[in-house]
């Protein structure tokens, strides 16, 4: 928006002011760390089938499901809510599609049917969240916690407790295919994210969500339909999580009922916060959430690459994220600015005043 200023320098300045700027910096730093360990880390080569291969490509592929649930989470958070059920919706989506494809012929038609089924089921789960929050009036945290716990149980019931496996080329392609040498899964996720961004900003959904999140009482009196908006947002979040579930299971064509989507809701929340959307609701930033999701994926890969022991992984992640949140906090930023402005900016301001 403000980046349309004059010249690349102004554009850069606009970027620096964005909250997600530090997310981009963190991604670059993590890549640098990896580069220090292995100078060839960033290399991208053309693989045997003509597709690009390399660590960066792996990161993008891994980021796809996180991008989707982060975008959904971002919208929910804007309304001052939270959706803890996204990880469980992912596993339900995986279970439904694997169970369906297990008995279906390996055709494009049944692949599409499986995806259609996922959309319906995940929208239904989202609608339950929406109903608990808007009609019953439960706290979003509690409502979605219920679905988070029930969802994994539901997945186990659907597969009979098994880790169901199936084959379907079309379905598999969504995760493992390539378009123009790039992983299809990343492009699909990006496409969905852009579509959501357009939906929200081209319609008045974004304004309504912000109004609701900033001041529910005033928004209600202004005629904003809280109930319909909450339904919409939780359903959108559910459907996006359903797609994330498809991507997560399609790569191995197996649903792991205890591990698919496990604790990914936390990653999504982190991605949203890193992207500059406050958990207190109101103004939200979808681009930021996407960048946050890529950062989380980079962090995951880095942890593995550096060989951090799996027990220390959460602590490592925590340190990076705390550092990032500190950098973003208004207070710290103001302190930085003050130190700089004490020397340079102050006199300039004086002049403006005098003029």
């Amino acid at each position, binding site marked *: 928006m403000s980046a349309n200023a004059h010249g690349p320098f102004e554009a850069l300045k606009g970027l620096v002011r964005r909250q997600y700027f530090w997310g981009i910096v963190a991604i670059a730093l993590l890549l640098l760390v990896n580069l220090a360990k292995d100078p060839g880390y960033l290399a991208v080569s053309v693989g045997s089938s003509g597709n690009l291969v390399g660590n960066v490509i792996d990161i993008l592929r891994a980021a796809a499901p996180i991008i989707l649930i982060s975008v959904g989470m971002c919208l929910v958070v804007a309304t001052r809510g939270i959706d803890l059920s996204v990880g469980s919706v992912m596993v339900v989506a995986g279970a439904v599609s694997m169970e369906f494809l297990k008995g279906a012929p390996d055709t494009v038609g049944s692949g599409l049917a499986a995806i259609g089924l996922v959309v319906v089921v995940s929208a239904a789960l989202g609608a339950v969240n929406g109903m608990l929050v808007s009609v019953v009036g439960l706290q979003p945290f509690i409502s979605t916690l219920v679905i988070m716990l029930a969802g994994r149980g539901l997945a186990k019931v659907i597969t009979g407790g098994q880790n169901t496996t199936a084959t379907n080329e079309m379905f598999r392609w969504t995760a493992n295919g390539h378009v123009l040498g790039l992983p299809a899964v990343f492009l699909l996720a990006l496409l969905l994210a852009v579509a959501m961004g357009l939906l929200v900003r081209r319609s008045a959904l974004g304004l309504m969500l912000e109004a609701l999140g900033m001041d529910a*009482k005033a928004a209600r009196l202004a005629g904003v339909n809280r109930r319909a908006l909450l339904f919409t947002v939780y359903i959108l979040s559910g459907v996006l999580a359903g797609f994330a579930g498809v991507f997560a299971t399609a790569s191995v064509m197996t649903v792991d009922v205890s591990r698919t989507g496990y604790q990914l809701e936390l990653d999504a929340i982190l991605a949203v916060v890193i992207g500059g959307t406050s958990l207190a609701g109101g103004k939200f930033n979808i681009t930021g959430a996407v960048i946050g999701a890529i950062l989380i994926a980079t962090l995951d890969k880095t942890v593995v690459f550096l060989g951090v022991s799996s027990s220390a992984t959460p602590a490592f992640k925590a340190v990076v994220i705390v550092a990032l949140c500190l950098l973003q906090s208004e207070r710290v930023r103001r302190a930085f600015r003050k130190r700089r402005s004490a020397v340079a900016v102050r006199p300039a301001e004086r002049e403006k005043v005098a003029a």
Partner: protein
Amino acid sequence: MSESLPIVEMAGISISFPGVKALDEVGLRLFPGEVHTLMGENGAGKSTLIKALTGVYRIDEGEIRISGEPRLLGGTADAQHAGISTVYQEVNLCSNLTIGENVMLGHEVRGAAGINWRATHRAAGETLEKLGLGHLNPKQALATLPLAVQQLVAISRSMVAQCKVLILDEPTSSLDANEVEQLFTVIRSLRDQGVAILFVSHFLDQVYAISDRLTVLRNGRFEGEYRTHELDRAQLISKMIGKDVDALKSLDAKGARRVRSDAAPLYSAKGIGRKGAIEEIDIDLHRGEVVGLAGLLGSGRTELARLIYGADRPDTGEVTMNDEKAEITSPAKALARRIAFSSENRRDEGIIRDLSVRENLILAVQARRGWARPLPRREQDAIVEKYVSALGVRPADPERPIRLLSGGNQQKVLLGRWLATEPDILILDEPTRGIDIGAKAEIQEYVAGLADDGLSVLFISSEIEEVVRQSDRIVVLKDHRKIAELEGGQGVSAESIVNVIAEDGLGDPSADTAVREEVTT
């Protein structure tokens, strides 16, 4: 009381915000034992000057002396330390705490084992008593109180600490005559104890009733300091707006009465009521008619308005609009039927602080269309342009977050929001709260013009004179029920309405106390 030394002396104060020079070398002197009124149009810089004195804003230039010593105020704590106690323009209490906790916040009575809540609440009760709020239960949640009472609670809070300077920024904006009188009694007694009082109000009657000295600001500049008796109203107004205009004339002139067509009412409610808010009531609204709601604080004016708008759900009664039954159970439904409601509570039920002026203006129009049908940017700009200029919103910058506007200008934006929905029925609860006299006359004229063209207006104001002046028909409320309905016109005046209210229920002495209890429990 004569020329003693000023306790507060501000000189050459300048404050700039990005794009606005809010104060430009302004001075202010406060003397002990004097009531000093700060006058100026909306956006003149009154609140900003007050915030400079209370340490909310850092001053760019100038000097503040307190008791003769130059002071650097780094924050509100410094100002409190210096004995300055403040009630800001927007009531800033914690609505999730009790009344007593709000009053005593930071001044809780401490015993050996931490805070002594019993003593704290007792102290709160005593403080409230001074403002005639003795009937309130300090343990009641603040949120349950009407805005005017919250305003009084905020004032009580400022009087807990012994202060040398008391600042009241538009404390009377939603009070009616009795409460104002009560407040003035307290102010006078503090003044006689030697407290310096800084007062802001857009009501000239109040200004002349209470103040000893005036400072006038215009466009962020210092116009002058005067003894109140040296300056008559016309002079004062011309100092404020910078030209000789009889703004008062249009206020006083009573508009020609509209002739009501005998057609069926546009809106007709039979027996609508809600437990604890308002008893069953009948009310009709016609096209092209202004209906006023008169009544004292707590009579149920706002409650009735909220019921009509669907902000609260009626428990009983039936509503017909254009001869068909209408279910108005939410604001969205009311808007769909072209009813608009401007709440008295600008801060909590009006503006959305972090949205821009443009977004605040179009919000209701957009909400009625639904999110899937966005208002094209060109239409948005047209709406913004129309109402920003019609209502005189300043600064006229649509992309500025609304929280950066002065209180009166925020109120104008809100009015614009409701006018932009082009309603058939417009419910205005204290619509000109905090708006300066010049703009007030213009806005009243504007609304009257819309009524001439067929708009139906339901008008609520704590100033009975204003209700009489504006309305074609007046519904009088008392103790949550309707006691009379008067055709406006020759016979009706503020006194006659006050009499109707006073005479009602004289035969039944228990009525008054019964309601008191209802309020406290």
